[in-house]
């Protein structure tokens, strides 16, 4: 009985065997789990279950991975159509913002728009036939009035650059939290996990730049985060005083569900350790050094503000 020899042999006909076995080290974890409890003779049985799990998935992706990627795709559509409207690329909105968003600001928003479009295309290509349908621009209402059924949260989102950038920041900060919350659910597939992390950090770069834009560019002095209404830093300090429009954006920086796993951005306890005490820093500094994940339900509730 030579487990590794068997797998090496399988690898000759199926080079992706390690991927299917949700990675070599995971395999060792499987062994770790039963090694003590079962006799060595039982190893082949447990291995069979392992292979079945790896190969039994339809289309190669597990249900959980499909769900997380479609969740991500939903958010990417939200961002994509938001920027498309703001830039009036469709020519349909007759967006007044088109004139307000000029020069460097406009060029930077185009860069972000291009990334979001690439993310949509990338996720669709990974999901294939398992991808949700295009959500289409008409499914969104970025004023937050839910198609006129309630008072608008951001009535001038496409006519006031300040409002547009505030909503953009909230969407990007939400995206960062969403990917961070989703990553552990992708741990069984290295390729997908890495791609998700590669999107996650791009969303963080977008968020940083939008925050920098909102305070007047890189040479503008960041505001004092202890003062509500101050200009933003390029990172999240405490709960960011509820964000750019606290009545509508506090949830972006607040706790998720359950709060023990998805604390607010003001959290200073990491891995059970109080980083504020360890480094003898202020609560704001301790919270700035770590971003927090958010659960799917809370993210979808935030996104729901912008659907009809």
């Amino acid at each position, binding site marked *: *009985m030579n*487990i*590794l*020899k068997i797998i090496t042999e399988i690898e000759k006909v199926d080079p992706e065997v*390690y991927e299917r076995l949700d990675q*070599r*080290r995971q395999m060792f974890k499987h*062994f*770790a*789990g*039963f090694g*003590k409890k079962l006799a*060595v003779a039982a190893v082949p049985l447990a291995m069979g279950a392992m292979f079945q799990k790896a190969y039994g998935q339809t289309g190669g992706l597990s249900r959980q991975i499909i769900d997380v990627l479609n969740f991500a795709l939903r958010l990417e559509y939200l961002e994509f159509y938001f920027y498309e409207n703001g830039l009036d690329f469709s020519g349909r909105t007759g967006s007044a913002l088109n004139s307000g968003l000029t020069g*460097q600001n406009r060029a*930077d928003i185009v*860069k*972000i728009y291009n990334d*979001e*479009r*690439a*993310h949509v295309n*990338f996720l669709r290509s990974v999901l294939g036939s398992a991808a949700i349908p295009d959500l289409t621009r008409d499914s969104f209402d970025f004023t937050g009035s839910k198609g006129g059924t309630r008072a608008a949260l951001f009535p001038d989102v496409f006519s006031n650059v300040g409002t547009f950038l505030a909503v953009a920041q909230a969407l990007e900060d939400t995206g*960062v939290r969403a990917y*961070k919350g989703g*990553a*552990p659910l992708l*741990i069984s597939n*290295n390729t997908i*996990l*890495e791609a998700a*992390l*590669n*999107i*996650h*950090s*791009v969303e*963080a*770069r977008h*968020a*940083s*730049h939008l925050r*920098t834009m909102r305070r007047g*560019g*890189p*040479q503008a*002095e*960041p505001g004092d985060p202890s003062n509500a209404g101050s200009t933003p*830093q*390029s*990172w999240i300090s405490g709960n960011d005083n509820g964000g750019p429009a606290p009545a509508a954006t506090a949830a972006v920086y607040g706790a998720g569900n359950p709060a023990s796993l998805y604390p607010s951005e003001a959290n200073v306890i*990491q*891995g059970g*350790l109080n980083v504020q005490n*360890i*480094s003898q820093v202020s609560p704001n*500094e301790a919270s*700035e*050094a*770590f*971003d927090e994940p958010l659960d799917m339900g809370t993210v979808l509730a935030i996104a729901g503000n912008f659907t009809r």
Partner: protein
Amino acid sequence: MEIINNFHHLIQIVMSHISHKSSEAENAQEEVMVPLQRRAFLRYSGAGVALSGLVLAGCTDDRLNDIFKQVDRNSGVVNVGSGDVGILNYAYALEQLEAAFYAKVTQEQFYLNATRAERIILKDLADHEKIHSDFLYAAIKAAGAIPIKKLTPDFSSVNFASRASVLGTAKAFEDLGVAAYNGAGKLISNPAYLTIAGKIVSVEARHAALIRDLLQNGTFVGPDVVDPTTGLEKSKSPAEVAAIANTFLAQGSKIDVSSLPRD
């Protein structure tokens, strides 16, 4: 976990004896760690003598041996170790480097003609990176493992009086940090550690974007770091990262990541 904790307790006892005998306690620590890790793994695998004999007797696979590759004891490099703790120590090495860099930037009273915004930002970055470094040290200990030693940086290639040199180095470190965490995420087994890495990497990405914008506004997602066709940031493997990081680390503090998981 109990086995691991007991095991590390044992190592600590062994090492405290060694430190009495040797003036090079830190080197001794590394030497003791390496052969024992192999045994630790086998005990952790829970299979005991029978299964470990089974696995190893038939081990024709080079990659398994690579995982346990022994350090060249004379090279004076710092091996970050294997498994999840190895990844944490790898991150700890990078955060130490960043923290040391920004600490020196602030100690040197910044470069000539640094603007107020630049001073505020660099001070914040110094705080954040020190927090990351302090935290990882504590987290590795809390996991019952042993953090790598305090690394000695070599910033001789940096002109701390020059804005271009300081911000250029900051950009290199921040982009490197993001690429490193992005490349290491898939090597982590424990989802809790993956989440912690995720909490740190997005802050590094926020730093990277701002430093880039300070150097040239609008370069926050430059094509050198984000593939424009996929919108995905480019990862770097531990080996690629170590090669760059080691150019900023002194002899005796260069890191060896060859025992980390490969895939």
